[in-house]
């Protein structure tokens, strides 16, 4: 449940799940196609504009945060929708293994980044296409508070130390705001560092449950996080306070209270910024800094469209959605990053997204959000799985537990959770 869609929905105050688009609106002659989506509010409205271009009537159903529970219940009742948009690839794989999905063939123009396209295939068959992406390797800050963004991890650490010291002396904002009450914020941090220090093979093996979480690169990534998070004065109010701060509140700390200089988040932070920014100064972003200045990590998330077994209409709609031109209305409206590399960069109106689309094309390796690929409960939700483990780790390192001990505990918990969910989870 940690998908981008979910996070974005969360952000938008997403309450709006229960929405049935004019039920019974059958197309002339053909029956309408039903799509269950995780989006709500503004995103739901945009998606409706997108499918308005489809020749048959499409009934869009926003099902709120727990689309897994919804689809499972629908499946039990024999009333599965034709198409669903799922917030994490782990679900696509689970459903495909259970035989719920039908194979889909994307449009000719469909080109997803190398790190993403394989995630939706099981045993060589493709069961889904990416329809929306999120860029998860961004820091946000006001240019006036932070004139020179750090270009490497070491620069970030020394900047944090410097600002932290100043903050403790009461002479300026804390360096970092962090919404540690939401476990996915911490897993996103971890994935960026891991993507930087571990090679692609290990990262993917961890996602598949084939590698050992006690391996050296995982430890190293956690040690790096401990190095940064344990800096005295790193967070406004300290680590204990950060653990009670939710993601949106951490953005408010930067853009409204200016208690912190920067916040790590995905591209969808701009929706919250628009609501709470004080003054007219626009926010700037920089890429998550890696060990080397040239080769920074790029972690992405995404939403995938799948068609349920026995619905040929559904497979057809999925194919249509994978076409480069299908999402043009959303591109024009802004706030949308396409996972389809065939969409020309010039067609983005939104300057931030245009730049991010360029980064998506330029990156050597694009890694997909690791926690979204994990099976069963390991994938995390409040108080459960990797979310909980990373929060424990954060609590330990900000509470003065030596980094080595904190890392040892965390890797132990991770390995245990991986072992417990290896049998296919729930």
């Amino acid at each position, binding site marked *: 449940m940690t998908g981008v869609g979910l996070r974005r929905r*969360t*952000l938008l*105050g*997403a*309450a*709006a*799940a*229960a*929405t*049935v688009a004019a*039920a019974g609106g059958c197309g002339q002659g053909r029956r309408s196609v039903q799509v*269950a989506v995780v989006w709500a509010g503004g995103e739901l409205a945009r998606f409706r504009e997108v499918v308005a271009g489809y020749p048959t009537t499409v009934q869009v*159903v*926003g*099902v*709120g*945060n*727990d689309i*897994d*529970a*919804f689809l*499972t*219940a*629908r499946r*039990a*009742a*024999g*009333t599965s929708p034709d198409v669903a948009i799922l917030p994490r690839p782990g679900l696509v794989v689970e459903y495909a293994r259970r035989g719920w999905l039908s194979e889909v063939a994307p449009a000719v123009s469909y080109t997803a980044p190398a790190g993403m396209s394989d995630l939706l295939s099981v045993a060589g068959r493709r069961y889904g296409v990416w329809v929306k992406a999120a860029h998860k390797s961004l820091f946000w800050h006001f240019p006036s508070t932070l004139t020179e963004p750090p270009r490497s991890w070491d620069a970030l650490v020394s900047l944090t130390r410097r600002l932290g010291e100043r903050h403790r002396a009461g002479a300026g904002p804390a360096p970092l705001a962090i919404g*540690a*009450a*939401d*476990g996915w914020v911490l897993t996103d941090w971890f994935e960026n560092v891991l993507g930087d220090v571990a090679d692609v093979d290990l990262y993917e093996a961890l996602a598949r449950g084939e590698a050992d979480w006690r391996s050296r690169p995982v430890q190293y990534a956690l040690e790096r996080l401990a190095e940064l998070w344990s800096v005295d004065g790193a967070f406004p*109010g*300290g680590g*204990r*306070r950060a*653990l*009670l701060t*939710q*993601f*949106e*509140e951490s953005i*408010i700390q930067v853009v*409204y*209270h200016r208690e912190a200089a920067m916040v790590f988040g995905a591209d969808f932070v701009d929706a*919250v910024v628009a*609501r*709470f920014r004080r003054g007219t100064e626009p926010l700037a972003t920089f890429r998550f800094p890696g060990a080397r200045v040239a080769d920074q990590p790029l972690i992405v998330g995404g939403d995938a469209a799948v068609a349920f077994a026995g619905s040929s209409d559904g497979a057809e709609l999925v194919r249509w959605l994978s076409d480069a031109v299908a999402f043009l209305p959303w591109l024009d409206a802004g706030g949308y990053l396409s996972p389809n590399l065939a969409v020309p960069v010039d067609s983005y109106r939104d300057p931030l997204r245009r730049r991010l689309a360029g980064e998506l094309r330029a990156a050597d390796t694009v890694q997909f959000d690791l926690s979204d690929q994990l099976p069963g*409960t390991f994938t995390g*939700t*409040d*108080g*459960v799985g990797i*979310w*909980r483990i990373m*929060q424990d780790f954060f*609590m330990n390192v900000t509470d003065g537990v030596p980094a080595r001990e904190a890392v040892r505990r965390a890797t132990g918990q991770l390995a245990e959770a991986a072992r417990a969910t290896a049998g296919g989870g*729930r």
Partner: protein
Amino acid sequence: MSRGPLLGELAVLDDVGPPRRGRAYPAAGVSWALLAPAVLLLGGLLAWPVLRTVHASVTTDGRWVGVEHYRAALAAPGTAAVIGRTLLWALLVPTVVTVLGYLLAAASRRSQEGWLVRLILVVPTALPLVVTGVTFRLLYDPDPERGLATLLLARVTGRDPEQLPQLLGPDLVTVAVMSAFVWAWVGLAMLVFRAALDAVPTGLVDAVRAFGGTRRDVLWDAQWRPLLLRTVAVVFALVAVGTSRTFDLILVMTPGSVRDEAAVLSLRIWQTSGATTTGEGAALGVVWLVAVTAGMLVVALFVRQAWPPPQQPAGSAVTASPPRRLVRLLAAGAAIAWLLPLGVLAATSLQNPVRAATGGWWSGPPGLDSYRAVLGGAELWRSLGFTLVLAVVVTAAVLGVALLAAYPLAWLTGPAAQVTGLVLMAAVVVPVQVIAGPLNEVLGLALSSGTARGVALVHIALGVPFAVLVLRNSFADLPAEQVRGARIGGRHWWGTLRRLARHNRTALVAVAVLEFVQVWNDLVVGLLFSGPDAAPLGLFLAWQTRGFVAGSGTLAAGCVLASILPVLVFVLARRQVVAGLVAGGVR
């Protein structure tokens, strides 16, 4: 009140059996027809899922695995703490609520401002627990610029915000959630105690005094021994069963990072299984089910006697003196303390969305922007409309099914009556999280999984046992003359039933009000069973707590709007509710 029957009258009316039961019964064939809807509902949506849960706890994909799931579930990290916390909830919280309820009932009795105190205390009882959770999370916000409690702590201790104890932090979060629960439940305890105290014959008090008894003697001999002991047991049991509802509070009040520190069994089962059936979840569920049922049966056997005494003491004019000044001050202080969280919620809802997210509720002039924002969107309206329809339909259905079933059941006497009573009692306390997976399977068969129909069915099944219990007892307790009148006046059984129902108006109102408020205030059924065409209010509000601080203005406004109807209904009908409860529900 009741006169001796005339010679031969009993025979004419087939009125045999113990004097307080067994007068209102239809023919045997009709009985089964009347019981059928209730039996079908309870069998299909409670009994079968419970059996299926037990089955799932000892099998994997239909293969027998013995106690493996139990071992795994109990060995999982934190399970011992979760069970300990659940026990703490079931023992500590009812104790506190019972003591406070008694003290406040005694303090607010017979004083002039007592009615106001009682009114203030009753309001939290009717609030959805989601709203209570939101209210206390606002109050306990870790930022002294937003949370009043944190601000007061900072002032009192004079400590830096970073050093302050965090009310929502890992150490105190359980205490924080408990305080919210006590706030919500003391009103109900107080109402029941008040009814009990009013039923104590004043003559007894006078007698103890006349023999030179002290205040303590009066409490012990004239109140505790004749009546209060049983009342305490009743209140304690009510609250202990109620603590299984902490689920809603924990879900709403705890940020993700401290959720495990507050987790109780209901939450753990939900985290393990969601709305599906898993071996480990089922094992935990069975453990919990056994504990709850056993506890309930012990209490039920303990308090089975008539309560309070059926006859009102004659001439119970107020002769005792009003309570002392100090006691009255205590009551007034409690009223103010209970009003404070309500004030915080209302004041937050009157800040505009940005100010509510960035400062305290005292930081800006009041306005209606948050209300405008929440009323301007279609979601709240859709949710309100859906919940209203759902609550009305469910209440009507529960009343109908329960009335039909209670009528023949009231005819039972002796062991049969006791056994049905205990079975119904056990059905009342089945926690829905335990049977969610199997329930979804059953609903899937009825093609109503994830639909409004499914949600309504689950609500009805969960509401029927309690309603049958209350109505059965109140039917059985009807005075002989009224039963006779109904049986002579009604030509068919349904005519009799109609007449009898008319005599039972209090119990009917109590059942209707409680059921309506329960469905309106629900979170867990909506969370587990609703689909896209059905987002009940509780769920609608609970979703928004995922961005709690950023959305606190509109969230508070939504909470206020969601609370108006249940509070109105409950406050207006509180007399009937308590009378109906003590007449039938708590025996």
